[in-house]
């Protein structure tokens, strides 16, 4: 008999980056890296678990922007080209390291990984990884939840509930179109919750969302079971709080597993290490050095001296860390159960891209974790939030606190001196969008297309990623440009519509460039 539940939640998200106007584009490679290093390895893990009849449950948010990119023919075709370049590079690496017994096996390892990735992507899933995740959902192992349409940070949109509602409506539509069913739950972007947003979620048929720890702990009234049971908002929508202890063991740079000295070093990539002329054909268009994904060293220690990566030693560490995680969770739930008098739920949410992209061994850790949970113990059971609610429908009613999982737990990452200028423009554009939706209700033809494109541009401008990148500095110019571009495009379309003088070539060009949400209906902005 289990003494508690574990709910692993992976938040898979990338902003919508698609530049048909450039042959190769640096920021587009975020998607290609994530496919090779995170999504395909996770698919391989889930496939293996199902093949070996391991019963497991995992929840993933696949954001509407990510789903849109995974199903975009241009990006799919470009990804294959990207993989082909990596296959060629890894082949060259096998040759270059032929006299080096430490590095050549690593070059072969990467070569095989790229070949396997290509086979899985092209032959098995016909270039559409959304269908892979859908298949795990249909097998009952993976619960796929949604996110706001473009990952807009909702607490800073609160003053315009129509704008928040549109983010949720476009998300639900996209999720259903691509994955075949409406989502039961949502990952609020950045876990950004404000009291009242749950009412909008309820209207759109969403039953639960995930909050950071203090969102629940600071709720009113005080939550009786802390974060070890979900709560209901007054709307009846359930909120699940992040467990700090299990989060820290994976997240923390100092105490977390990914920092182990035997794990692969992320920051030593041949894109930076090898001679420029040799590596140049595999860098992006502007020729600046960047990560290729081929990394030969292990973390080794805090200094600059690095030892070659040893996959067998890393694998041993993964097994130890999976066992350690389970041991700690068992002790945790046994202790909490004795205090609560019922089975606690431990919710462990992570960024999906941590697994594989940053923490190379992360997918293997998940593999070992689920196998050990299935075979080696009876204290813990993996569960999805929706299954938990079905089994434990009676929960406390509270009003959670405004919160996020960003630095310091509130809105400062998305509202500070580096990015506060955007809100004046985002709010104005949302106001114009809402007014236009009302004024042109039931529009047809060119007017309708213009209004739909205005909605796309506004949603794209609202991505929290741009404000986040402006704050963190790297790629800051790109984030500023994306925000301004979408706002500028929105304003042009709005002005054309107002003057009743629609520039058809301009509209067509924007429809083709910013082609997200093909089923957009601007009337999502009507309350």
């Amino acid at each position: 008999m289990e003494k508690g539940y574990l709910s692993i939640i992976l938040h898979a998200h990338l902003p919508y980056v698609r530049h048909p106007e450039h042959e190769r584009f640096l920021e587009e490679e975020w998607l290609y890296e994530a496919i090779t290093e995170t999504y395909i390895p996770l698919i391989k893990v889930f496939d293996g678990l199902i093949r070996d009849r391991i019963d497991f449950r995992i929840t993933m948010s696949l954001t509407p922007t990510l789903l849109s990119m995974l199903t975009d023919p241009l990006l799919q075709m470009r990804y294959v080209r990207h993989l082909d370049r990596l296959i060629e590079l890894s082949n060259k690496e096998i040759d270059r390291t032929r006299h080096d017994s430490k590095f050549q096996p690593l070059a072969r390892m990467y070569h095989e990984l790229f070949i396997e990735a290509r086979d899985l992507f092209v032959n098995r899933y016909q270039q559409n990884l959304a269908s892979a995740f859908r298949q795990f959902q249909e097998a009952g192992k993976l619960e796929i939840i949604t996110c706001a349409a473009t990952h807009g940070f909702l607490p800073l949109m609160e003053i315009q509930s129509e704008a928040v509602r549109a983010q949720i409506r476009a998300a639900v539509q996209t999720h259903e179109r691509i994955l075949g069913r409406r989502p039961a739950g949502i990952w609020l972007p950045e876990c950004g919750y404000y009291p009242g947003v749950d009412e909008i979620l309820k209207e759109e048929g969403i039953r639960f969302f995930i909050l950071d720890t203090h969102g629940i702990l600071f709720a009113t009234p005080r939550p009786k079971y802390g974060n070890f049971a979900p709560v209901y908002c007054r709307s009846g929508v359930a909120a699940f709080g992040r467990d700090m202890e299990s989060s820290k063991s994976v997240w923390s740079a100092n105490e977390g597993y990914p920092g182990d000295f035997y794990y692969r070093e992320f920051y030593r990539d041949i894109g930076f290490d090898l001679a420029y002329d040799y590596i140049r054909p595999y860098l992006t268009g502007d020729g600046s050095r960047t990560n290729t994904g081929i990394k030969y060293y292990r973390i080794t220690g805090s200094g600059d001296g690095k030892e070659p990566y040893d996959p067998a030693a890393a694998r041993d560490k993964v097994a130890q860390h999976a066992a350690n995680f389970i041991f700690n969770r068992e002790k945790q739930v046994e202790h909490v159960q004795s205090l609560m008098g019922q089975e606690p739920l431990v919710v462990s949410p992570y960024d999906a891209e941590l697994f594989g992209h940053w923490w190379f061994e992360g997918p293997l850790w998940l593999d070992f974790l689920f196998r050990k949970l299935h075979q080696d113990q009876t204290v813990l059971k993996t569960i999805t939030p929706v299954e938990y609610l079905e089994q434990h429908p009676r929960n406390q009613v509270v009003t959670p606190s405004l919160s996020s999982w960003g630095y310091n737990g509130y809105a400062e990452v998305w509202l500070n001196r580096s990015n506060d200028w955007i809100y004046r423009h985002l709010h104005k554009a949302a106001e114009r969008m809402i007014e236009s939706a009302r004024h042109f209700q039931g529009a047809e033809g060119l007017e309708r297309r213009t209004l739909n494109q205005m909605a796309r541009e506004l949603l794209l401008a609202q991505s929290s990623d741009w404000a986040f990148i402006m704050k963190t500095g790297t790629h800051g110019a790109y984030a500023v440009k994306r925000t301004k571009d979408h706002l500028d495009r929105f304003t042009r379309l709005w002005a054309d519509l107002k003057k009743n003088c629609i520039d058809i070539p301009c509209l067509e060009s924007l429809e083709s460039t910013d082609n997200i949400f093909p089923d957009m209906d601007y009337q999502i902005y009507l309350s």
Partner: protein
Amino acid sequence: MKKRGKPVRSIKKVLRRIRSKISRKPLKIKEIEKRHDFSAPNLLEFYGDNRIVLLAKDPWWLFAYWEVTAGRRKEVLEMIRDQRLSPEKTVLRVYDAMDTSFSRRLSFFDIELNFIATNWYIDVGFPNHPWVVELGIRTREGFFFALVKSNTVRTPRFGVSDVLDEEWMMPDDLFWKLFGLSGGFAGQKSSLAVVEFTTPAPL
């Protein structure tokens, strides 16, 4: 001669390297600019509105941005002069919106602004509290004339609630199932009686 020749050759070499670096550098920069044009369009600074928007940054800080048209400013200045008062400062008046009593007007503090400010971070220092801001002109005589008034914002909670009352809920469909199993749909009752009987109550 050899002794003099060598330095000349090496100087030439160095010069050639420098020249080559100089001549290559702009080419590389040009290529980057061509492929990745990060020049963004300029957005309007103002939209011709009279508005102030208040946002919560964290439990202690708010952020306000605003714009006021020359027309609105002129209108308020005329109002001030009509009352034979003298405008002194543009200020942000931050109200404690919790206090709805008659003495509400006393529950505020002012932030004096310079002429060019169009946004401000406001240190309210009070979690879980509602706030409203007015941008306005304060007169030498101490009167305040609002130019624009903001939305109300509540700073987020910081700390555990002192409300301990528990309330529990289960989804409606499950409640109806249990209700049926409990005999709630038994034949004796009229539908009206069932509706009366099943009026939601705390569980």
